[in-house]
């Protein structure tokens, strides 16, 4: 589903590569933790998958598409098949829960009838039934992240990228978030989650890819966070 072949990314005005000859394969339906300290290249990895950045060398295939050969014109279509969740939720403060989720479908031109049908389903899937008309500032951090996950998942993407989704959330609430991610993963969606949260990684027992200074130092199925140390 995601295939990195010897990928190097150096940001302009920086000497040290953010990713240094990284090769990794993520299969369809996998759940992968991307761990490592800040600046190790986790976010760069996710940005490359979205084609927000271009690698300096190496090849990236996402959902069977060679990103180097994907024209700018077709990048939006790639992104429709990838859902994204961030540490800071990125909700629209002037829209309620339903509207925030519906927004993702409106802007890709889905018909209103379709939106009316699927948005409540997804809101229920993330455990926010009955809160569809709340505004983001009336929700807790955990609930806001659930809205973000509903928005990421509402178009049934093949891949869900999560960049430290529990970074702003207390451990007890994080477990709920992870349950939702797990539920999404069970529908067949590939999930890649970048995180610092050792407890979560240890409890989930999923594949762990560890990055350090842009290099993969560990790739382990059913791994834990700190085993390399």
């Amino acid at each position, binding site marked *: 589903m995601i295939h990195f072949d010897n990928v190097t990314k150096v940001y302009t005005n920086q000497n040290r590569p953010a990713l240094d000859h990284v090769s990794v394969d993520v299969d369809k339906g996998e759940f992968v933790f991307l761990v490592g300290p800040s600046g190790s290249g986790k976010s760069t990895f996710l940005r490359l998958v979205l084609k927000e950045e271009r690698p300096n060398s190496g090849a990236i295939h996402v959902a069977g598409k060679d990103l180097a050969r994907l024209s700018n014109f077709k990048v939006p279509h790639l992104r429709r098949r990838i859902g994204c969740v961030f540490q800071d939720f990125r909700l629209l403060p002037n829209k309620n829960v339903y509207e925030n989720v519906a927004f993702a479908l409106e*802007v890709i031109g889905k018909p209103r009838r379709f939106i009316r049908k699927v948005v409540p389903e997804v809101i229920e899937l993330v455990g926010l039934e009955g809160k569809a008309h709340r505004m983001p500032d009336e929700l807790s951090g955990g609930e806001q992240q659930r809205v973000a996950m509903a928005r990421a998942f509402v178009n049934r993407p093949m891949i869900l990228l999560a960049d430290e989704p529990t970074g702003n959330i207390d451990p007890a609430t994080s477990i709920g978030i992870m349950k939702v991610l797990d539920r999404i993963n069970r529908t067949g969606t590939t999930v890649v989650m970048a995180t610092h949260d050792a407890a979560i990684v240890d409890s989930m027992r999923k594949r762990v890819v560890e990055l350090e200074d842009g290099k993969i130092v560990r790739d382990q199925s059913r791994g834990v966070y700190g085993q390399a140390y």
Partner: protein
Amino acid sequence: MRANFIFSEVWIGLRRNLTMTIAVIITVAVGMAMLGVGLMINAQVGMMKDYWYDKVEVSVFLCTKNSDMPSCKGKAVTQGQTQALKQQIEGLPGVEQVFYEDQATAYKNFQDAYSNQKALADAAKVEDMPTSFRIKLENPDNYQPVIQALQGQPGVAQVINQRDLISQFFTMLDKLRYAAVVVAVVLVLAAALLIGNTVRLSAFNRRRETGIMRLVGASNLYIQLPFVMEGMIAGLIGGVFAAVMLIVTKVLLFDEVAQFLSSTAATIGWDDVASVITLTMIIGVVICVLASFVTLRRYLRV
């Protein structure tokens, strides 16, 4: 669905940027009105040229007794000289018609022309009036050979082309017209820059929305269209104001000119105003759309 969504986005954008939007509307309105007035003056000058150049004549004044003109040598024109001149003029190529204006007619015309200056009119006597030939040319532009042929002939005091007199007036009108166009171009440029700025502000205000739109895979057109529409609507409203200003100008300025000339044939009509309004509208909207697009190209990259 799509249209609905885009229009609601446009409305939000225009409302959030109200002051800038108003600035754009005013600049576009004034710029387009100036351009329109320039175009209207242009049309007006063209029509007046056609109207007057069609009427102008070459006047050949004949010698009177005690004339100051050196060619007369102080003697009045004789009957024979007048006859000879008439024949010569009629034989010239390009002459359409010749009228002979005798002293009585000249006196009457003089009295009419200076009726509001009693002293001057009273002082003039019939025998002071010069007789003259009024020549109407087939092609008013082709006056040189006629003037050259008659200048200095015996009995001819002076040859005057009326065209020389009005052309000074037209030179002034031409300058006015160019000034209007220059001001209009400057204003249109200012409008384009202002629109660019407004769209940039608008894009900055909504970077959250556009960021999410990019993330969930909205196409560029879908992201950019609300901003371009904002520019377009501002341009359109400015164009409507410009149209109102142009209509007012037509009534207050050009219709006055028509009254002054006491002829509607020499002034622009409503059909001219309509075409000027259409043209300025189109230019205004196109400039707004282009300015929006160019700004967005640099601001909302994929």
